[in-house]
Each structure stands twice: as structure tokens, then as C-alpha cells.
């Protein structure tokens, strides 16, 4: 049984249906990548898991427990943290405060702490007192990941963490992934950069217009099949 499972998950923005019966499974310790064109429903899927969009309770299970439609704050407490698209740091908080708020209301200690996040991303330690908006794009992304890690999640959902960043910066951020996995987080990546996704993921899901078009291990998927699943031709 998977740590996190979606069962025939559908999602709506008002009357507009964005997801049509997605089945997805994330095993403990696994990294799963979701790829697909713009508007395929990748971000919608992560938002629905995180509780930001309504879903029937049984359509999402975490550790065997139905969590669909729970309030966002409750889902975070259960151990699922989202790194939102566009980083979304809090502008009136310093870098360090942004990290600290990731651990809001938590008393139990886990692996991740302020110092461990600074070890993971030393660039943040140097800028810890700076207002978050003065960071570079890559540093902001590091801070957003660090903020999510501060909750010591069992599942880390990453939405487009390479968006708008230079390749060298992206490599630096992905270099942190093994350490994140080694310390207890299973990871769901939404990624437009297919090469990057295939490199780091244990399994890949390709969405197309709100439906699951293809899934499997990167080694088993040919370039043609991915191309077809991605573009739908």
C-alpha cells in the first residue's frame, strides 16, 4: 500500500473540471514526478492533495486514512507539505522568519531544524536577516523548500521548483533532493523540465488535459511514448 494514494480523483474550479479520475500512488521513500503540458492539471493535483481544492474524503488517502477535503492546516499537520508554485515567500517576513513559520505550532522535533536547513542551503544562512523579497530567484526557491521542510513532512509536494531559474541554479537545488529523501520525506515533483524529472524520479506520471496519459519507471518509457503522452498526438 502506498503512503499517499489518489483514487479516481476529480477536481473542479467552479463548473470547470480540471482533473478526471486520476489514480496515483506514492510509496514511502519514493520520488514521483508528474509531467505534462501547461494546463494538464499538475498543479491542480498538488493543490487538491494539499487541501486547497475540495475533494471527496475517500479519493485521497494518506497512510491508509482518507484525507480528501480536510482543511489545509490539518493536512500540513498530518505530514504533507507543499512548496507552492512561484515560491510565495511572505514579503514582510525575513528569510529566517519565513523558515521559522514553516514550523508554526509544532512542538515535536524532527530531523529538520533551522540549522539543518542552513546546512542544506548555505546561501540562506548568509542572508538570514534579509527581507525575503531581496533574495535571488534561486535563493527564494531554496527558502520556499526550506520553509516546507521545517514542518518535517513525510510527503513533500514540489510545484515547479525549476520554473524561471538558470540551469546551474536548478542543479544546485536538485542536489539537495537526496538529502531530503534520506531524512524521511517522500517526494512528489511537478516539473516542466522532463529531462530533470526523468533523472531524479523513481516513477513518472504524465498528465494530459486532466487525465493520466502515461505512467512508469523512467527506464521503461521510450522518448516516443512520453512525447505522445505529453502532446497528445
Amino acid at each position, binding site marked *: 500500500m502506498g503512503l499517499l494514494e489518489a483514487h479516481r480523483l476529480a477536481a473542479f474550479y467552479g463548473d470547470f473540471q480540471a482533473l478526471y479520475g486520476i489514480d496515483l500512488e506514492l510509496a514511502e521513500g519514493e520520488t514521483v514526478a508528474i509531467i505534462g503540458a501547461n494546463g494538464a492539471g499538475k498543479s491542480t493535483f498538488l493543490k487538491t492533495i*494539499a487541501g486547497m481544492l475540495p475533494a471527496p474524503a475517500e479519493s485521497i488517502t494518506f497512510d491508509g486514512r482518507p484525507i480528501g477535503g480536510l*482543511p489545509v*492546516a490539518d493536512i500540513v499537520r498530518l505530514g504533507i507539505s507543499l512548496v507552492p508554485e512561484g515560491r510565495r515567500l*511572505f514579503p*514582510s*517576513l525575513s528569510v529566517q*522568519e519565513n523558515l521559522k513559520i514553516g514550523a*508554526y505550532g509544532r512542538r515535536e522535533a524532527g530531523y529538520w531544524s533551522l540549522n539543518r536547513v542552513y546546512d542544506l542551503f548555505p546561501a540562506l544562512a548568509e542572508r538570514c536577516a534579509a527581507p525575503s523579497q531581496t533574495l535571488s530567484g534561486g535563493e527564494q526557491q531554496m527558502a520556499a523548500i526550506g*520553509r516546507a521542510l521545517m514542518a518535517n513532512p513525510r510527503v513533500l509536494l514540489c510545484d515547479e521548483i525549476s520554473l524561471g531559474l538558470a540551469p546551474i541554479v536548478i542543479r544546485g537545488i536538485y542536489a539537495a533532493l537526496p538529502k531530503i529523501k534520506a531524512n524521511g520525506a517522500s517526494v512528489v515533483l511537478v516539473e516542466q523540465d522532463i529531462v530533470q524529472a526523468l533523472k531524479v524520479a523513481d516513477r513518472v506520471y504524465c498528465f494530459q488535459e486532466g487525465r493520466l496519459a502515461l505512467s512508469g519507471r523512467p527506464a521503461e518509457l521510450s522518448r516516443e511514448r512520453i512525447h505522445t503522452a505529453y502532446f497528445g498526438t
Partner: protein
Amino acid sequence: MIAWLDTLLQGILLGGLYALFAAGLSLIFGIMRLVNLAHGDLIVLAAFIVLVLMHALGLDPFLATLVAMPVLFAVGYALQRALLNRTLGRDILPPLLVTFGLSIIIRNGLLEVFSADSRRLSAGAIEVASVQLGGGLAVGTMHLITLASAVGVIVALNLLFYRTELGRAFRATSDDPEIAQLMGIDNKHIFSLATAIAMVAIVVSALYLGMRATFDPTIGPARLLFAFEAVIIGGLGSFWGTLAGGIIIGVAQTVGGKINPEWQILAGHLAFLAVLVLRPRGLFPRVGE
């Protein structure tokens, strides 16, 4: 010369009262962008609660205020949780309409229970005491305590906002309520705590409202206006700015009143308009606004 210095001093001290009126409004508006049109009436309501506690328990106004604080904290939490949270959303009209209605309900409820008679919170000898500053200058002890309390409230709110985990949650929720929830923050609870804390600031302002002059159930809206002007002058979300805004209005009023007694209130409003023209975002706008 001394006369003008005295006017300036009186204005600064009066500004302390306006800053007290404004502190709770600034807190609520800063965190949830909720314009509380019932703010002035809540101050008057708090003054009546202090009055009732004084008579029921035989306390002086200061002690009665201390007793009233937890009561109003609870009232504020319940008010936000049960009513005002439901009005928050993309549309700014519902909170305006609901707090406008609340203002009318409070005012008429108070008229019904307490009648239109003027009341005051009698504090005894301290009301007429004064401190000699030398050179013929003297200031009322009560006015000095008012300003000191305003500074105390502003310092306390700043410490809460910038030194505590709850304060971080307040600022984060104010910045981006959607992402704040992703941190495990329960926005509705945070908003309710904010209004609860604002009510504690409100009862402090009610204390000085009632000790310095008489009050009756109908004077709330005028207090709201001064408070709102102080918040806008200072810049949304800045507590020190709110103090500065209160002082600017206070000084403008006493200076205007010195030139011509009829100009007192007008001068305060003109100062507000001048700041609005020159610095539309206020004197100390917060980062990210």
C-alpha cells in the same frame, strides 16, 4: 512663544488619545484588511462595561479596566469567529455593511440600556492633577498618562508582532492568507485572536475616553473618524505610524483651535487630507504593500 510651545505640547498629548483610539483599528485593518466601522461604538461599549464593573465591584477605573480586559478579549474572539470571519473574502463590501449594522445595533442597544445621559469614569484627584515643567508650562497628569499608555500599547503590539510566533503568524496571514494555511496556520483562529487583542487595546482607549471627558452612547462614530485618520496617516500596518498619525491630528487640532476655536476639528481633518495628498500610502507604509 511659551504659549505656542504649550499648544504643541497639548497637541502631542491629545495625539496620545487618538493613537489609543486607533491602535485596535490599526491591528484589525493591518491583519485582515477589515475596516471595522463599529470601532468607535465598540470603544463606547467598552467604556460602559468599565462603568458597570466600577459600580458593581466598587473598583476605581484602572482596576475595572483590568477586569474588563479578559471579558472584552472573549467578546472580540467570539465576534470575529461567529460573525466577522463570515464577511471576509474578495469582496470588500460585506465587512463594511456588517460592521456598519453592528455600529447601529451597539449604539441603540446602549441607548436602550443606559439612556442618552452623559457619564464619566471618575478617577478622583488624578483628574485635576498636573505636572509643572518649569517656565510656566504645565501638563495635566491625566494627559501624560494617556500618552504613556498609548506608547505602552504601541510597544506591546510591536513586541507581539515582531518578537513572537503569534506575531509571525499575524504578519504571514496578512501577507498571503492562502499560503499561511499551508504553514498549518488556522486563519479563522488567527483573525479571531487579532480581534480579541484589538478589543484589549479598545478597552484601554475606553478608559481614557471616559476619564478625560463625558461620554454617551452616541459619540462612537466621531471616535472612529479620528482613529481611521490616524491609521491612514501613519500607513497601514505600522503601529508607530499610527502613533505618529494620532499625534499629527492632535497637534493640528490644538494649533487650529489656538488660531480660531472654531477651526479645531477642521484643522485635524485638513492635516489628514494634506498627508493623503502628499503621501497617499501614509508616512510609514509597510514593506510589500
